[in-house]
């Protein structure tokens, strides 16, 4: 046991308090949001809600699920995440494998590399891309949300470096056994890539789930909005949402207002990420070292 000076003890106590306060401060706003979402409008308007619901009610949640387009939007988001991540993973794996081969085995490797990396350095930007998507007739189609960034070059490089880190002998043995390129990739490499697939797959899932901007510019009807785009319009304009709601909600509306309505839907929108976050966090952290070349 190391000797601890009084100064050290004081530091440790101060440090623990400081870190705890910072951590609490980071998540406190979300607790406030949660408390507001479960409170009735009268309590919220009176400024009585702090970190605990006052006059508990589920009205705003009921409204979110029954009323507006929340459930439809969440469904569109799920479809988009599945389609987008599936496509990205496929392209990442197909591309990363040949590019991970050294130049003397694949003569065109560096040409392709420059071709892909250039798009990381310079891009046409918002408007030419928007015009292109429009001209291709992709407006209002789910493809407009997944095709333009279907190959995330960053993730591809992570995957490429991961494959490079695998022992060379694996491929050499397979070649000697007469395996072709597709066989090596599909049957030998693919099972070994699981950790890298988990990491870049999660990047893609979170990216697609959180993206709201493509939905805003490429979807011309609020009915087609993915969740985050829908939430974005909701924050800007809750009244519009009320007008869009179909059915009779007089009873619910008496217990809620724009603030509680927004709070509950924002919380529901964050919920999927919050639920899976503790389980996937590991992969994000391992992802930090995944891309580096070992040895």
């Amino acid at each position: 046991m190391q000797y601890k000076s009084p100064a050290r003890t004081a530091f440790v106590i101060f440090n623990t308090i400081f870190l705890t306060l910072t951590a609490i401060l980071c998540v406190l706003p979300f607790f406030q949001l949660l408390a507001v979402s479960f409170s009735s409008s009268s309590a919220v308007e009176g400024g009585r809600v702090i970190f605990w619901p006052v006059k508990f009610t589920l009205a705003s949640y009921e409204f979110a699920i029954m009323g507006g387009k929340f459930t439809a939007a969440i469904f569109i988001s799920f479809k988009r995440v599945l389609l987008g991540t599936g496509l990205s993973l496929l392209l990442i794996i197909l591309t990363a494998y040949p590019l991970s081969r050294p130049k003397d085995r694949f003569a065109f490797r560096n040409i392709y590399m420059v071709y892909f990396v250039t798009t990381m350095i310079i891009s046409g930007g918002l408007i030419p891309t928007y015009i292109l998507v429009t001209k291709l007739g992709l407006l209002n189609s789910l493809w407009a949300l997944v095709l333009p960034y279907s190959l995330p070059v960053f993730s591809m490089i992570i995957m490429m470096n991961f494959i490079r880190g695998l022992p060379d002998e694996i491929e050499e043995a397979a070649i000697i056994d007469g395996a072709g390129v597709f066989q090596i990739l599909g049957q030998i490499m693919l099972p070994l890539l699981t950790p890298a697939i988990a990491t870049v797959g999660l990047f893609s899932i979170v990216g697609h789930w959180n993206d709201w901007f493509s939905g805003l510019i490429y979807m011309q009807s609020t009915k087609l909005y993915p969740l985050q785009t829908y939430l974005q319009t909701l924050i800007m304009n809750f009244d519009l949402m009320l007008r869009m709601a179909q059915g009779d909600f007089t009873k619910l509306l008496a217990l809620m207002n724009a603030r509680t309505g927004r709070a509950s839907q924002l919380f529901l929108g964050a919920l999927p990420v919050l639920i899976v976050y503790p389980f996937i966090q590991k992969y994000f952290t391992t992802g930090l070292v995944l891309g580096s070349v070992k040895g």
Partner: protein
Amino acid sequence: MAALLLKTIYKGDVSVNSFKTNLRRQWQYHVLLIPAAVLIFIFSYIPLYGLIIAFQRFNPGTGFHSPWVGLANFERLFNQPNFVRTIWNTVFLSVMKIIGGIVVPDVFSLLLNEVRRTSAKRTFQTVVYIPNFLSWVIMAGVMIDILSADGIVNLTLLKIGINPISFLGNNNIFPWTMIISDIWKSFGFGTVIYLATLTSIDPGLYEAAIVDGAKRWKQTVHITMPMLMPMIVLMTILSMGNILNAGFDQIYNLYSPIVYQSGDIIDTYVYRLGILQAQYSVGTAVGLFKSGISAILILMSYYFADRFAGYRVF
């Protein structure tokens, strides 16, 4: 985004070759690459070509082949006082965010590193990393709620005798609200990176220092800081490429015409001009201006990262 580059550290070529170049094998490599190459051509290279409409008067019918007007769009742009203001706002916000995004996670990870219990360390990391995974839409929704006139922050301020502050509607305060909230959302990521660097420091160095009679503070100054420095340098260099990205998602969801003066950035300007007002050509001119400068900055940052920190991106 720049921080992601860390994951892609790659030094030199792996030059093991016990096999003759095999053309059949290479053909199959091409087949694997074609789908991605085609999609990249369509969605990255065609828009790049589309930048030429910055020199044209865009006509929706003719698309990328509209009448040429030379530099007229750029002239119009630089004659607008709003545009110059936009550039200043962009650079100011992103430089402040870069500084905050380096100092805060550094200090936090140094303090966190002093915590001995691994479980406690991990809990802190997990908690401060959460906002990173939520979209700016959600974060903005939360901020609008807590920062509004009758939100919890102003109610608390009122209780301790401070007049309500208009965090999102005052040109003197708005940029700082953006900077601090950006740090709030992203410092968990930096903390994870720096902490990973700190845990990889050879414990032998500390043991030697203890033998030499160095106390904690001396150890921090003479071992921890120098070991952390390359990572700090690298992160700083890599953020350079992002100087013209001041955070569209954040600003767009939090600003309003009242704070255009202090909060309007190049990206929000392009969006309003190009998409909302359908001035495609002028909007693209702004985009081209930004793309060009960004490309130079990115290339410079890659060069410096290689030169001074020994990191290659690919």
